[in-house]
């Protein structure tokens, strides 16, 4: 299971790297190549985002990637098939990331079943708090997949405990208010927040939103277990092409 994989891996590395891509962006072929270079650059796990037309928690970079992927014909089926290939090809764990409607329309149990069958390890659904996620949680449990929940700086201690109870695999801590793709201030304040997160759960902690360079990751060492690179690789692909991804990831650690 995801959590034990992460804990094992953490015995070898001070901090793990999770990256994120939007399926079908720029194309499925390119996405495959990006994953390939990420994996060979040493990424420890990956989020595969199934594009959605209304990604309210994402900032403009990922939003555009969602829209362009859809415009180019990315369907849920294509994304699932692609994920299957990816999971079969590469060793690291893959998670789906998407908005709840994608699961809901597919049929929740059917979606989770498919995930399990295709070798995915878990899912991040940013607009699904546990209160709304009974069916999802049951299915994830049944298929032994990890539902990843999110902590935010506005989350109370009490609620962190509550979320920690439902989370599996790790907790995704968002570094700050706002959407993805905006700069984060890696500061004392962030540290305090992470201390709060740490004391609320035994699960590994991932930190995302605004992580984009080695200094950020250095800052996070010892504070969280996983650094999440989200928008930054998409920005890189947009600017310098997919060839730049491998070097970028290697340089982070």
């Amino acid at each position, binding site marked *: 299971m995801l959590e034990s994989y992460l804990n094992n891996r953490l015995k070898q590395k001070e901090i793990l790297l999770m990256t994120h891509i939007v399926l079908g962006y720029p194309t499925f072929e390119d996405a495959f190549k990006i994953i390939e270079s990420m994996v060979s650059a040493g990424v420890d796990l990956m989020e595969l985002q199934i594009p*959605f*037309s*209304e*990604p*309210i*928690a994402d*900032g*403009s970079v990922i*939003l*555009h990637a969602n*829209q362009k992927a*859809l415009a180019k014909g990315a*369907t*849920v*089926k294509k994304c699932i098939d692609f994920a299957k290939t990816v999971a079969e090809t590469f060793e690291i764990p893959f998670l789906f990331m998407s*908005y*709840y*409607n*994608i699961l*809901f*329309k*597919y049929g929740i149990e059917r979606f989770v079943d498919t995930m399990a069958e295709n070798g995915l390890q878990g899912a991040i659904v*940013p*607009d*699904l*708090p546990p*209160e*709304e996620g009974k069916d999802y949680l049951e299915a994830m449990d049944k298929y032994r997949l990890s539902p990843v*929940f*999110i*902590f*935010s*700086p*506005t*989350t*109370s201690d009490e*609620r962190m405990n509550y*979320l920690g109870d439902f989370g599996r695999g790790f907790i995704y801590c*968002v570094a700050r*208010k*706002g*959407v993805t793709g*905006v700069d984060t201030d890696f500061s004392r304040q962030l540290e305090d927040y992470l201390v709060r997160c740490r004391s609320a759960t035994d699960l590994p902690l991932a930190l995302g939103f605004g992580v984009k360079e080695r200094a950020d990751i250095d800052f996070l060492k010892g504070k969280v277990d996983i650094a999440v690179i989200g928008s930054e690789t998409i920005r890189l692909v947009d600017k310098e092409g997919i060839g730049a991804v491998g070097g970028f990831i290697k340089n982070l650690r």
Partner: protein
Amino acid sequence: MKDRGYYKKFGGAYLPEILVATFDELVEIFQTAKNDPGFWEEYVEIMSTYSCRPTPITFAQNLTRHFGGARIYVKREDLNHTGAHKANNVIGQGLLVKRMGKTRVIAETGAGQHGVATATMAARFGFKCTIYMGEVDVQRQRPNVFWMERLGAEVITVTEGTRILKDAINESFRDWVTHMDTTHYVLGTACGPHPFPEMVSYFQSIIGQEARKQILEQAGGLPARVYACVGGGSNALGTFNAFLDDPVDLVGVEAGGEGLETGRHACRLSSKDSSIGVAQGYKTYFLQDNDGQMRETHSVAAGLDYVGVSPILAQYAETGRIRFEAATDQEVVDALSLTIQKEGLIPALESAHAFAQAFKEAPAMTPRDIILINQSGRGDKDIFTIADAFADPKWQAFIKEKAEGYHA
């Protein structure tokens, strides 16, 4: 948040974690206000001194004669300050913002009506204000943009997605998750995560409360049918709420656009083209494809051009308590034209949907039957759209001349 705002299987609060605390606060502030009898009084007081409540009901004697069926009454939300029922909601939420001690408001807008209303409320209450508006709607409703800016609001043109109402909502959420400490998102209709559907219809219920009393007094009985247009559903719920326990046929009218058969419409509850889904924080019927991707919608009325619909209405669609119908763009323009000429009333294009449906049904009813149409807003704001719908050559010549003046 304990009560998660479900109406049968619709509603809920599908929130990014970052907003959970904000919603908890909002739910609490709203519940406290609701339980404070002074709050509704304060609300009614400001609505009757800053806006013009109670708005009257008008007996449409000429339309009644014209159709020779039911007696037609019109609830005049167009007479509100800023020209639509949207004022009710924004002033109500404004009072909550004051209670929360926040200093900035944001809002989405489609027709521009809600944007103007919010910018007005912000000016009056001294809040900073940002309005998100899809690029397509900015085109359709430029005068409203002009007024929002004059009112001191920043208007941000949303170029994402289909560039209409739903995309403006998404952008508003993106702003909100960044600035919720200082900022309240004044959602414009009875959609979105709990408590918005409840809260917005609570404030809008002033429409029906007044209307029920007025029609009993003036028409001497309950209406057989009540008509309201349905965008997000706020004016419909506001009007219908007071009649739910009465033997009254409630009719919500959606935007039939170019016709149901063309697929170019915005009918969530009156067509087979929608299905249940979850987006923008709540569960309801959406116009979406099989993958759950939202589809483009179409309506001559920007304020009805929306993919989702109030979960409260979705509930009543399922229980059958409210009947949902569609009126096409053409039917709407015709109904608008007739209403202007017969009664001297200029409904907004949105509101004209309610008129259009009522006109289809009134002739088959008898003069013993009363019908009530909610005129949710006035059509002045729609001059560019209406002038185009009528293809008025004099208007076009005027615009060309104006443009030449600006080129010079």
